[in-house]
């Protein structure tokens, strides 16, 4: 893809502003616009600036880079834009970033992100060797040929302390279900979704091809991902590069396992739970029901919706690499703190997530709002697992 | 004052309007120095009656060169002395300029000169454009249409369409310099008079200013459809605290044309009651029945025992209530004394109960009976609460009493957060005291822009 591919579309943005809102216009739903409020930080602003860059009316600059990289790729603009070309908005923003990458004008943290992934396979320069350590004492097996599912964990799940618990929880559930699966551990590479979202197409291709080759070599047919980001890359982008696998998100698989009776959830977990729709599961891939159905199948849970839910869910702020680069920044108007307040308003005991990025962002958000003692952050697997444990069952 | 023969101003005025239409004689000065209110008379130096815009311009120019105050006048029925000079000068009686210049049935406006009376327009429309009406205030038919608009008056269509100022499309005004200005849609040379227009608004500079920014010579007013059927329903209750709610629900239906609330101590049966009169108009009997049905539902559904409903005015009162204009003026003779004055307080409707109770205290303290008429304006956006105090013009004590009661009522209104409508000088000063200082300064600067010599109805909207 190149920016030129969109030359018949890019000037068609009317800057009408529908993209800024939720579907009922009650709130601004574009995280950077909501925070920065300059017109340049709205989706329409990005579209017009990218066109200006294309026409050489403006030059790439650090400020332009900030404007583009504060975009978390949450796709609210795609959802709300009324024009026929609405699907292409995120593509154009991606290509805008790609132009900046090409020009060598990106924020330093973005540059580091790419560099670290290229050299270490993850943004934090953590050793590749330790990528599988999180699974060591959890009995989670390595993938071997013939296993039904490759459990693809991703960078955050592998290295972030909090998210590792999420990975372990899902692993436990898979074990319990009797499905044959395995992880790649220290052989696992970054899936590349964020790299693509940030405009480094070359690096993305490199990663994708590397993964595809590896998966094929291992005879992988089905992949279950922890992260909706990886889900998106592998489901939608890998096929174009020769990687045709059956890809599911872990909540989809859980739903299937529960429905088919392979995973039984005894016990009651009397809790009020609110669910935060991840952007790459929800708006990007239209998966809204399965995670809710999984929660529903835990006896005793009362599901309460946040004011902005499903297509209108407000992004946690972690996408577009922001979970690492933090260009969108913190403070009271940071997306994760706003979302934390919104979760607290429901009166829920638990805010449930289905994405490693959401988990790490919301952890910070709740802390920032001093809500981490009031409302518990758990992912769906952890909730299901806790019900099973409460029921006295062994794993 | 120089003797008549040596009065060059008088000669100048005669030259402009002709001898028959200027006076400095004692009879004219007597009449024009007082109005029907309880206010004491004030000095008038000349009375002049122009018949054309050019004459008005010439009069203004003459006054301007001499620095002599000008006070434009309609029918002087504002009852607040607003058309009586505060600093002497020339009263410009506009009532020779009383042509109805144009009525557009399709575009629903009437272009009139400033001296056209309510009665003239009412009958003209009835005769020539029976499907149209204008909003008629509860004033005698001799009151002028323009006067009512320019003081933000109220009438029988105000419940639906707002104050009469809001019904003004465009104006022609003679400015204090003598130059002519047209506003609204008439701002362009094509001079169409149909609307307030979408160009920088200048019309507002003459609405509510009590004649201090110029003399209006022409006015275009909106006309409204006149449905063939007009009737009324009545709600009665004995608890003024529920009145706002009842009115809210009535106006929520958007089915009543005019909603007024009345409270009086005489006749005896009215004492202690709040009576809401809701006028209903319709094109067909079916429409009338539907509207009445929904209006009736309010008392049944929401207020049950507390509000009683009458589907029409009681026989003997019907003619009175259904008249247009409503003969409110009859209050003037309640003391068999030919006079009354009232405070009109513009307030949000939920202030009504407190205004009601406290008003009774004041009236009784001055040995008067309370007499209220409250008009709901533009769907309840506000109400005009009038407290009327009749007096006997032949009895000085009676007049003083009325004046004292009026002053106290005015103060009460302001304290409640209401604003006195078309206030006389003292009321204006009370308002200015409470007004945002910057806002008042802007008023003065605007006036100074138009009237650097301070000749336009001076003394009004001023501090000492």
């Amino acid at each position, binding site marked *: 893809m190149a920016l030129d591919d969109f030359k018949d579309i890019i000037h068609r943005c009317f800057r009408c502003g529908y993209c800024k809102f939720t579907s009922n216009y009650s709130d601004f739903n574009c995280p950077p616009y909501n925070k920065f409020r300059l017109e*340049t930080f709205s989706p329409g602003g990005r579209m017009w600036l990218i066109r200006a860059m294309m026409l050489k009316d403006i030059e790439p600059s650090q400020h332009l880079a900030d404007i583009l990289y504060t975009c978390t790729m949450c796709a609210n603009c795609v959802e709300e834009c009324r024009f026929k070309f609405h699907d292409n908005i995120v593509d154009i923003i991606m290509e805008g970033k790609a132009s900046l990458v090409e020009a060598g004008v990106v924020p330093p943290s973005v540059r580091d992100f790419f560099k670290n992934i290229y050299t270490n396979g993850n943004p934090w320069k953590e050793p590749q060797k330790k990528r599988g350590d999180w699974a060591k004492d959890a009995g989670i097996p390595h993938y071997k040929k013939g296993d039904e599912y490759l459990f693809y964990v991703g960078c955050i799940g592998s290295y972030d302390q909090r998210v590792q618990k999420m990975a372990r929880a899902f692993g436990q559930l898979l074990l319990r279900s009797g499905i044959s699966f395995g992880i790649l551990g220290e052989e696992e590479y970054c899936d590349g979704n964020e790299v693509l979202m940030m405009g480094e197409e070359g690096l993305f291709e490199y990663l994708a091809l590397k993964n595809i080759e590896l998966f094929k070599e291992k005879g992988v047919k089905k992949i279950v991902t922890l992260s909706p980001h990886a889900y998106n890359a592998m489901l939608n982008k890998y096929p174009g590069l020769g990687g045709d696998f059956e890809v599911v998100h872990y909540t989809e698989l859980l739903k299937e396992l529960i429905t088919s009776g392979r995973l039984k959830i005894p016990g009651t977990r009397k809790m009020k739970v609110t669910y935060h729709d991840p952007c790459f599961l929800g708006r990007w891939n239209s998966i809204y029901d399965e995670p809710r159905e999984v929660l529903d199948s835990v006896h005793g849970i009362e599901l309460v919706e946040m004011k902005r839910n499903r297509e209108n869910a407000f992004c946690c702020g972690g996408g577009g690499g922001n979970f690492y680069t933090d260009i969108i920044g913190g403070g009271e108007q940071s997306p994760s703190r706003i979302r934390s307040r919104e979760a607290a308003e429901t009166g829920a005991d638990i805010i449930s997530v289905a994405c490693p990025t959401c988990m790490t962002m919301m952890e910070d958000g709740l802390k920032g709002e001093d809500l981490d003692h009031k409302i518990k952050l758990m992912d769906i697997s952890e909730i299901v697992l806790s019900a099973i444990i409460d029921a006295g069952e062994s794993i | 004052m120089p003797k008549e023969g040596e009065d060059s101003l008088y000669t100048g005025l005669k030259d402009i309007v002709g001898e028959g239409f200027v006076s400095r004689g004692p009879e004219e000065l007597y009449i024009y120095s007082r109005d029907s209110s309880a206010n004491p008379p004030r000095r008038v130096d000349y009375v002049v009656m122009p018949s054309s815009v050019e004459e008005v311009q010439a009069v203004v120019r003459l006054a301007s060169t001499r620095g002599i105050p000008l006070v434009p006048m309609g029918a002087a029925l504002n009852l607040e002395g607003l058309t009586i000079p505060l600093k002497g000068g020339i009263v410009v009686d506009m009532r020779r300029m009383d042509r109805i210049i144009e009525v557009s049935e399709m575009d629903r406006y009437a272009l009139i000169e400033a001296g056209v009376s309510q009665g003239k327009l009412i009958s003209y429309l009835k005769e020539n454009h029976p499907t149209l009406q204008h909003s008629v205030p509860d004033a005698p038919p001799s009151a002028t249409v323009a006067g009512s608009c320019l003081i933000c008056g109220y009438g029988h269509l105000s419940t639906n369409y707002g104050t009469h100022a809001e019904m003004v499309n465009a104006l022609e005004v003679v400015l204090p310099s003598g130059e002519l200005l047209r506003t609204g849609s008439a701002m362009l040379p094509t001079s169409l008079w149909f609307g307030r227009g979408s*160009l920088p608004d200048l019309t507002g500079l003459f609405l509510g200013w009590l004649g201090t920014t110029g003399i209006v010579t022409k006015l275009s007013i909106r006309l409204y459809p006149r449905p063939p059927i007009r009737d009324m329903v009545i709600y009665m209750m004995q608890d003024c605290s529920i009145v706002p709610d009842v009115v809210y629900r009535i106006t929520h239906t958007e089915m009543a044309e005019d909603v007024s609330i009345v409270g009086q101590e005489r006749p005896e049966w009215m004492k202690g009651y709040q009576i809401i009169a809701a006028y209903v108009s319709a094109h067909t009997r079916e429409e009338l029945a539907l509207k009445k049905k929904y209006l009736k539902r309010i008392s049944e559904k929401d207020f049950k025992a507390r509000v009683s409903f009458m589907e029409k005015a009681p026989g003997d009162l019907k003619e009175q209530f259904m008249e247009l204009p409503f003969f409110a003026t009859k209050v003037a003779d309640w003391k068999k004394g030919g006079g009354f004055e009232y405070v009109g307080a513009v307030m949000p409707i939920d202030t009504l109960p407190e205004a009601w109770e406290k008003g009774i205290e004041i009236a009784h303290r001055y040995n008067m009976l309370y007499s209220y008429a409250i008009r709901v304006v533009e769907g309840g956006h506000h109400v005009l609460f009038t407290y009327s105090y009749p007096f006997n013009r032949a009895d000085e004590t009676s007049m003083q009493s009325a004046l004292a009661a009026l002053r106290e009522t005015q103060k009460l209104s302001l304290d409640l957060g209401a604003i006195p409508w078309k206030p006389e000088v003292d009321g204006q000063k009370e308002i200015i005291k409470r007004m945002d200082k910057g806002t008042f300064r802007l008023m003065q600067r605007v006036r100074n822009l138009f009237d650097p010599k301070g000749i336009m109805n001076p003394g009004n909207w001023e501090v000492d």
Partner: protein
Amino acid sequence: MKMAGDKDHVYEGLKTIVGDAFVSRDIEELYMYSRDPGASIPRNADWVVLPNTTDEVREIVVLAKDMKIPVVPISGGLTLSGLAVPVKGGIVMDMRRMDRIVEVNEMSRYVVVESGVSQGKLLSFLKENYPMLRHSMPDAPPAASVVGNTLIYGSGHLSKHGAHSEMINGLEVVLGDGEILRLGSLAVSPYWFGRAPLPDLVSLFVNWFGTTGIVTRLSLKLYPAHPLRDMLIFLVQDPGTIPEAVSRITATDLMEDVLIVASRPPKSPSVISLLTVYLTAETPEELDFKKELFVDMFKDFGKEGSKIVFTPKEMLPQKLVHGFMEEPQYAAATADFKKGGGFEYVGVVLPLSMVPVAWKKGEDIAKKHGFDPLYTVRNVGLGHSVVFAFAYPFNRADEKSLKRSRDALADTNDMALEIGGTPWKSELEGQARIMARMDPMVLSVMHGIKKVMDPEGIMNPGNWEHG
């Protein structure tokens, strides 16, 4: 000539007032704020600032006044006529951080909003919290602002109550010298229920395009909201019948909004004109009564070729019907008619009786410049006037297309003035044409007023300036 040091002084000054994060003089911001989505040629902005309070607005104005720098307020930025794009450079003041809904007085039916409140926010807030109340919504994107639209004679779904500028009870404003004023009943009373009975100063901000001061808050009239809303659609065979039709409809005062739209659908050989009547009611009985009344009204209307034909909704493409019923209507769709992301229109306030003349002349202009007629005609009040909009979509990427639209717009402005209409929210070009025809006295008064409100001439200068 401004010294570089002065520019820095302004920048530092602005940062001190609002904080670093809410000022910019970066190329990217200046690029965005120097253009709007209409057809105007871009004009430079020098700084962009986002105040959060009226006090901050005041401080910025004082700074600008001292430095003799223009201040140009922007909220929705969707006039399409470049009214929020600086004419003489200066500071663009983006009001949208000031987006609080300050107060709703339910009994007196008004809402007080800051200037940055969007139409969408107010719509959804009222629906959620005050379901018995609504405001009149223009058919603009929800990002349009309440205050902006109201101050430029907007019109919308409650058109029977008049233009939106008539719905202003009062304003809080900052004048060109930095003074903060309260206008309307709030000047004297704690309540913001109306302009009367005080001398009307609110009008000094209506249609003045920000040249008399910056509005920071506005009290807007609200109206009863009824649970049922529906519409009737009629096919208009002859635009000459429109005045009579609208006159009859509005004589009943039982409708909310009457809107005529005309366009040539993609596969149609000719322009289709539809007259839409919007109805609301508390009960199905009331709604049915109203519907029957209006359907009956046109049963025997006109002769062959001049009829107004009732068209049941089921017979029309559902997408169209859905679009008509939306709040607000998705008028922005026009922007992509040329797959070009742009449109602009001349909107003229006309007497109802002039609709056929304007219609025909509009057709001539459209033909001359290679457009199909693309009209909306909305009744304002009870047939008291109409807002007639002539739209010319363009392809932003095609300079020729832009020019064609600009030329058509200029011709339409001229035509509007010739027939005695007043264009609303005119772009600079249009303002010049209007002022060229104005009586010198009017110009003199306008100039005088501006001088009183804005002695240093910093308030959106270039607009309403003659010569």
